[in-house]
């Protein structure tokens, strides 16, 4: 280790104990004291700087985990809150549908007829069925007229 570096370390240590070092300079000190083979006059500082290095690394991890936990709790709380709001809104919507009276019993739109169990909506087909039905009715009318005529004679 050269003398310039040792002088720098001594200067930094002095600055550190005067409360004048920046975070970058403190990191330099920690990195320096993490090394093996320190000069005897500097060995006494090693436990302190090693402790600070370890402690700050662990604290950064623990603070990160705690922040993540707090964010997860906030997320669960808002999920619960919005879940409740959504459930209330859904209940109101269902109640609204169930409690609203029907305005007309023939709510179906469009015209249709039922023939032999079949629903017919095509107007032309409907007309054909109707004409066929009228044709059936006509001979029955003729029978009645014949009977009336016979009765009167």
């Amino acid at each position, binding site marked *: 280790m050269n003398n310039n570096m040792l002088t720098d370390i001594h200067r930094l240590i002095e600055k550190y104990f005067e409360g004048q070092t920046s975070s970058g300079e403190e990191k330099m000190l920690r990195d320096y004291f993490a090394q093996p083979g320190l000069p005897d006059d500097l060995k006494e500082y090693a436990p302190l700087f090693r402790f600070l290095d370890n402690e700050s690394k662990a604290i*950064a991890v623990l603070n990160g*985990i705690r922040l993540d936990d707090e964010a997860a709790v906030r997320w669960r709380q808002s999920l619960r809150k919005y879940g409740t709001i959504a459930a209330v809104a859904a209940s109101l919507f269902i109640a609204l549908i169930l409690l609203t009276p029907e305005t007309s019993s023939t709510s179906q739109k469009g015209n249709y007829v039922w023939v032999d169990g079949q629903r017919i909506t095509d107007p032309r087909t409907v007309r054909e069925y109707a004409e066929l039905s009228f044709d059936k009715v006509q001979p029955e009318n003729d029978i009645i007229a014949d009977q009336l005529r016979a009765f009167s004679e």
Partner: protein
Amino acid sequence: MSMDIAEYKRIVVAFRSSLLAVARHITGNTQDAEDVVQDVCLKMWHQRDRFEQYENVEAYCVTMARNMSIDRIRSRRPSVGESVLLGQEAEERLPDSLLEEKDDSDTIRNIIRMLPPLQQRILQMKDIEGYETDEITRITGIAPEAVRNNLSRARKRVRELCRIYFQIK
């Protein structure tokens, strides 16, 4: 093999809820439980080289959390006045309790905790949480010169107590 920071994070995340449950059950207080779990986790990190000798690391940590919680309820934090007094006494002699500590890291942490509250907070923010002096000024509302003075006094005091401790040891 010693654990790295990623492995440490994985272990803390895995153990945290059970440690918190134990600490909260004993201390009956969420803040104290958080402090206990933080101390257990810090101890875990400082002792990471010795982890291989424990068969069940989680059980070891839970036992540590239980013991630390019991210690905490036995000696609830002293008031500000008492803390200051403790700090002043520490200038004259090293408290016996420190000599009973097995780990250097526990000793240094306890030395820091003996500082007067303001010095302790500023040292914690600067040397452990990594804030710059102007950030500490902004957060605490204390003038930059006062921050530097308190920091300097705190660091010198820690150095002095560490010297005594390591000489006796």
